């Protein structure tokens, strides 16, 4: 593995984001197995609402760090009730009731605007813990995972913390970013620094709409990308038709595989259990690295 990476002149700390338009397409299965087969890699679980990659890797956490955001706290004796902050707040996290300003902490997105608009400086900054990040090793894979406390407004600060933790590693390792499902702003946050986006899709009509949305997002960010069709049934499938229309490269079509499904539902990492899967994912990884080095070459030529 190490050899072909060197041969291919791939950036060794390459960041590969794995995305899918909806949950249940096998996005975690793919990112976990790719990270495991790459070894000496980093796996980052950005699904901070329902992280599950660690269930496969079962690392022993050796680092835990709380993540906090800044929210306003009002000094009632200074506040004169002008309501400038209430009108300003785009998220409607503030209300003025019974001659008192009330802050809805779970609604506040920590944009910081109210501090700036208050003419009397009646608002002070308060730290609020919204979740935690963890990291630990699993057979050569560094696993990073975060969890957002329930009811919080946004997981973005936790994703930022996870991604900045990746930067702390001195040695160059490939980084696999398991993105949250969907195409919302927390997915954007997860892919913003990625070198390559791997889209995982299921060949159904329902899958197609979500796939289109996530593809639009990747296009918007101008990211090099390719697609893997999971649980491929062969023949005509709506995802493949879409990919052909748009000129999206299909790297692999993985047929439905009951054994792989069983390993996954038992939270086992297939490439660690069975040589067959080790080969399957190695060859997929090789294709991904191939895409990235093509892209890098293409970009330098321009």
């Amino acid at each position, binding site marked *: 593995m190490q050899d072909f990476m060197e041969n291919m002149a791939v950036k060794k700390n390459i960041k590969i984001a794995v995305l899918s338009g909806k949950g249940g397409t096998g996005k975690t299965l793919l990112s976990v197995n790719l990270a495991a087969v790459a070894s000496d890699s980093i796996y980052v679980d950005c699904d901070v*609402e329902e992280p599950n990659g660690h269930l496969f890797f079962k690392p022993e956490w050796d680092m835990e760090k709380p993540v906090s955001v800044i929210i306003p706290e009002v000094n009632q004796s200074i506040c004169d009730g002008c309501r400038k902050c*209430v009108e300003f*707040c*785009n*998220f*409607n*996290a*503030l*209300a*003025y*009731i*019974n001659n*008192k300003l*009330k802050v*809805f902490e*779970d*609604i506040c*997105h920590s944009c910081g605007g109210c501090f700036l608009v208050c003419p009397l400086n009646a608002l002070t900054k308060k730290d609020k813990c919204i979740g935690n990040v963890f990291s630990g090793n699993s057979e050569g894979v560094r696993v990073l995972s975060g969890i*957002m406390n*329930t*009811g*919080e*407004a*946004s*997981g*973005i600060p936790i994703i930022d913390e996870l991604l900045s933790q990746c930067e702390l590693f001195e040695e160059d390792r490939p980084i696999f970013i398991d993105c949250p499902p*969907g195409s*919302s*702003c*927390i997915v954007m946050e997860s892919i913003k620094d990625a070198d390559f986006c791997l889209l995982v899709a299921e060949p159904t009509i329902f899958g197609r709409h979500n796939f289109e949305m996530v593809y639009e997002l990747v296009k918007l960010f101008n990211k090099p990308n390719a697609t893997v069709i999971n649980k491929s049934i062969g023949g005509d499938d709506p995802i493949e038709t879409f990919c052909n229309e748009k000129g999206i490269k299909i790297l692999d079509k993985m047929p439905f595989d009951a054994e792989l499904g069983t390993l996954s539902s038992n939270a086992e990492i297939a490439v660690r259990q069975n040589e067959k899967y080790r080969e399957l994912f190695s060859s997929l990884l090789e294709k991904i690295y191939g895409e990235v080095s093509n892209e890098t070459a293409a970009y330098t030529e321009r």
Partner: protein
Amino acid sequence: MKIAIPADDNNIDSTVCMSFGRTPFFLIYDTETDKAEFLTNSAASSQGGAGIKAAQTVVDAKVSALLTPRCGQNAADVFTAANIAIYKTEGTSLKENITAFKEGRLAILGEIHAGFHGKHGG
């Protein structure tokens, strides 16, 4: 006493709006003078926190009670802080509910709905 009801339209023959935060209008009704006034709900198109903003509008109208089919937790917190009672509407028309309220037939709204925060992803 003044009461507020979310309304689908800005006339007294309208129906009660099923959503509190996203209702297009609020009927503000004075039970002593039978005077009706309609307020536009500026929170209807809000991205998030619509319930809080809508509640602010209702509080500012200085009502003593809100009649609504449902109400989210955040809005309910605003009403508690403002000492405004929340009653559950029955049937669909504004008029029926005004009558029912005057006759003391409406119950206090017991079940408060948790919001969807955390799911809109910022």
